[in-house]
């Protein structure tokens, strides 16, 4: 399981997870085999066979699953925007002492 905080910020306040482009995904499931944090879930008997089940398990700034994806179907938020957001949250936290 992943840490519950990242850089001192509650993990569920940070929007960092893969997004699946279903027009590209061919359900090879290489990402599922790779990710040790169980971010993905396979749904064999459904039309959409792969979903993001546990987004908060995804390690912030890790994009390794996308590097296993032949069809290039996985994308992530912008790192700079995420860093800025983390800084803002930390400031807000300081403000609340």
């Amino acid at each position: 399981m992943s840490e519950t905080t990242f850089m001192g910020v509650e993990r569920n306040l940070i929007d960092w997870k893969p997004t699946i482009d279903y027009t590209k995904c061919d359900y090879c499931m290489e990402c599922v085999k790779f990710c040790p944090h169980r971010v993905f879930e396979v749904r064999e008997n459904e039309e959409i066979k792969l979903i993001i089940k546990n987004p908060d398990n995804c390690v912030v700034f890790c994009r390794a699953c996308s590097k296993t994806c032949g069809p290039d179907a996985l994308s992530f938020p912008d790192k700079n925007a995420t860093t800025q957001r983390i800084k803002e949250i930390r400031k807000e936290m300081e403000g609340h002492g």
Partner: protein
Amino acid sequence: MVENYAILPCNGLDKCAGVISGELAIKLSENGDNKIICPVFYRVSETKYNKLAAERPLFVIDGCQTRCASKLAAEKNLKVARRIIVADEAKNHHIELNDGLRITDQEQAFVGTLFEKLNKADEKPTLSSEDAGISCDFEYETFQSGKFIFRIPKNAEVFFNENDCWAWVNGNRARIGVTDYVQQNLSDILYFYPPEIGDDIDQFGELGSIESSKAVFELVSPFRGKVVAINEKLVTNPELINENPYEKGWVAELELTDQEGDKELLIGFERYFEITQKKVEETNVR
């Protein structure tokens, strides 16, 4: 000049990037003393290409992230001297490859761009570990989990991010690498993809990547800055990262742009030691 390689392209017909890998291999063989290994033929008959692969350093050209050519090289126990992934290169050059298999003018021009880039890279003088700027004298605290030993530097000059990368800061410059946690998790590291000298890297931006048979790890830069040195030895000997990711296995050096601002989001030895111990307990490094 790219010379004297045995070139193994994926030559795939699943998508355009595979076709480009074949085109690039042909161009390299026509414009230099390079010999192509046909991946299809090699899979069914080793005799023809084993000698070639033994005599020359191997240059693998993968089309996409499925990395079929790299996997073939691994199956045949070949050591890869150099590798590119066409799809990654296309992204870096902001080129959207077409959906079909036929190469259009755009893709043909891209093959030319890649060819030029590869030749240029060979002409460029690069900095090696000997002439890089920072000398580091690490002192470690260690802990053990099963048969795995984790070393964590405790020098005050060293900063960590929570993505398991370290930075030794000296003046306005930092040497950067991965921690023992990464190399133990990946086990035998087979490839090192360096960043380019002169690249401007954001804090938490990608500073190259390393790859084992288990996974690809993107280095998350602790600092923002310009790449001023890379550890060239890792290109041919990525296993140095497994031997010691802090000393001979360092990755790159940056000239820092906002050292104090960046440090606010980094942690020191004590906190990183705690985090690593916790991660090791939870993930059961295997």
